């Protein structure tokens, strides 16, 4: 199903830029403006009371998190709006001579600039599940939902039959978007709106419409599941009633690799999650586990012990053309690929403690990756933009950490294990222990804010974020 979106363009795109001063603000001189005082609240830009429905071509891909292209726009005009705009222009001109500097100062004070702090946004007019989904998505993606007077951005709308929303920047007094959605569940429409807000404000694609896989355990049974990134709509991928582990997506949201003991020993399978068709990729003697697909989808790295020790191997994505990359006596584990596919980062215990090593994906020497400040290091994951490697460090507890991908100083982010990057190279999903069971949590790396995924029951672990 495709989410249809109607864009409600601001009626006065040219005039928007002139609306720099708040309507009705007194003409005070710059000395009295204090850095801490917020911009005075003004009436929000008026939107038309009802919109004629306009059919547009679908422009949001159901299985992507990215803005798929410029939507069609719609214009309408009205006298009230023109008069309101005229008043604003008059107010600006009347104050312009003495206020040019202070108007500019007022804008700079408000604009969000510290990347470690969430962006304040107000969300108004929604109810029930849509309200809940919008707020969860925005809080995961680096925003903080606050009251309107504290917000830089205001998202207002409704969900009567369809989700619609208008996003205003209180600093520039401009409408950034006005959309109405259709042809999808309300939950999905809300995710699409959240992504559109994020794209407008940050310039980067959102992740509210992305997919994860994980191991779900209930009692002694484990199965592989896939779900929306927030844990909703979880469906089983396996139904074998056998021990499973280590789900790993191929690029896209269709093919999932995982380890299963369904034939007795641990073997690697690849499964089309839509059709259910499954193929064994590695069924060698001993251990077959830790599949990691290259970013171009053509190869898979794995840990196999058939030669007598758990070592790193690479094969074509269908398992053919097997090549051995390491020949160490100690165990290797958990390979991951650089975004350009040229390097693999792998755990090795060859130095005594488990640590990270880099090796050319075509074969070569293991080179230790410096992780200063961390002790035992496992489960690396390379960010899609290539800049960071996230991993689990172990002191007395497990900690999610990142290190620059060339090695260096480690930053501890949160307590937990087994991180996986979102496509935005900003959000991590990981596992943590909560009240006696494993739950999945979402971490916004710049602000370090953590939100647990919605999870009804059981233990969820070993997440893999589809990219």
């Amino acid at each position, binding site marked *: 199903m495709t989410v249809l979106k109607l864009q409600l363009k601001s009626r006065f795109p040219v005039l928007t830029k002139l609306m720099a001063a708040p309507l009705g603000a007194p003409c005070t001189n710059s000395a009295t403006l204090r850095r801490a005082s917020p911009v005075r609240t003004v009436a929000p830009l008026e939107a038309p009371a009802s919109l004629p429905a306009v059919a547009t071509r679908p422009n949001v891909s159901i299985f992507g998190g990215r803005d798929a292209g410029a939507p069609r726009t719609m214009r309408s005009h009205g006298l009230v709006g023109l008069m309101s705009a005229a008043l604003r222009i008059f107010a600006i001109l009347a104050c312009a001579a003495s206020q040019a500097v202070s108007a500019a100062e007022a804008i700079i004070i408000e604009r969000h600039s510290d990347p470690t702090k969430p962006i304040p946004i107000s969300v108004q007019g929604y109810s029930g599940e849509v309200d809940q989904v919008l707020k969860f998505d925005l809080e995961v993606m680096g925003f903080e939902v606050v009251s309107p007077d504290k917000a830089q951005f205001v998202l207002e709308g409704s969900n009567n039959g369809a989700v619609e929303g208008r996003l205003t920047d209180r600093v520039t007094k401009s409408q950034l978007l006005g959309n109405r959605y259709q042809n999808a569940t309300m939950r999905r429409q809300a995710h699409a709106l959240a992504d559109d807000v994020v794209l407008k404000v940050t310039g980067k694609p959102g992740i509210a419409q992305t997919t994860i896989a994980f191991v779900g355990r209930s009692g002694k049974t484990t199965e592989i599941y896939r779900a929306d990134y927030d844990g909703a709509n979880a469906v089983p991928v396996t139904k074998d009633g056998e021990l499973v582990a*280590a789900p790993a997506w191929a690029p896209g949201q269709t093919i999932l690799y995982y380890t299963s003991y369904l034939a007795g020993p641990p073997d690697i399978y690849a499964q089309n999650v839509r059709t259910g068709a499954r193929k064994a990729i590695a069924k060698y003697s001993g251990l077959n586990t830790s599949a990691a697909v290259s970013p171009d989808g053509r190869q898979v790295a794995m840990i196999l012990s*058939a030669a007598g020790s758990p070592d790193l191997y690479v094969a074509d994505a269908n398992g053919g053309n097997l090549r051995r990359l390491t020949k160490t006596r100690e165990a290797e*584990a958990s390979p991951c690929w650089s975004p350009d596919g040229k390097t693999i980062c792998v755990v090795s215990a060859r130095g005594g403690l488990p640590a990270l090593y880099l090796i050319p994906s075509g074969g070569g020497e293991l080179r230790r990756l410096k992780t200063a400040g961390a002790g035992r290091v496992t489960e690396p994951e390379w960010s899609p933009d290539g800049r960071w490697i996230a991993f689990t460090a172990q002191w007395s507890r497990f900690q999610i950490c990142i290190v620059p991908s060339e090695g260096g100083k480690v930053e501890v982010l949160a307590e937990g294990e087994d991180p996986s990057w979102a496509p935005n190279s900003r959000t991590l999903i990981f596992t943590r222990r909560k009240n006696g069971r494993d739950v999945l949590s979402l971490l916004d790396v710049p602000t370090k804010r953590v939100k647990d995924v919605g999870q009804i029951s059981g233990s969820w672990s*070993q997440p893999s974020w589809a990219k």
Partner: protein
Amino acid sequence: MPGVGPNDLLGDGSLGELGPDRTLLNPDGGIELPAREDDSNYNFDREAFRDQTVYFDFDSSTVRPGERAKIKSVASYLQSDPTTKVRVEGHCDERGTSEYNRALGERRALSIREHLVGEGIAPDRVNTISYGEDRPAVLGNDPAAWDKNRRGEFVLMRPKT
């Protein structure tokens, strides 16, 4: 049989405990596992070697000297009945991460296997399987449980007649 070559000692020192016959070791770091075969040709007996479970130190796959007698005892039985095989199951406590523990469990099973080979058992009579931390012997989040979970278990395989 893998040929003679320099030992690839890379840290845990367990090769020194194998005794004089070091040539059995693949210079690349291990003894190749035999090809997979059909488990349904065998009966699996978990009780025969219940008392020979080998225990390991934290994050280690080295067989401690005090554990070696158990392996000798298993080797002795296998020598007495050449139709049998054994599967070594490697396990870990919960304190490592999931996939690292799966690899470590396998490394433990392989270390035990190397000792069996050192005792004269043919490599193709011993196979391995790792369960990582997923099949604890004792449930619990304390050292007493952890000690009992870092282990290698022997499962006797008798051919079905």
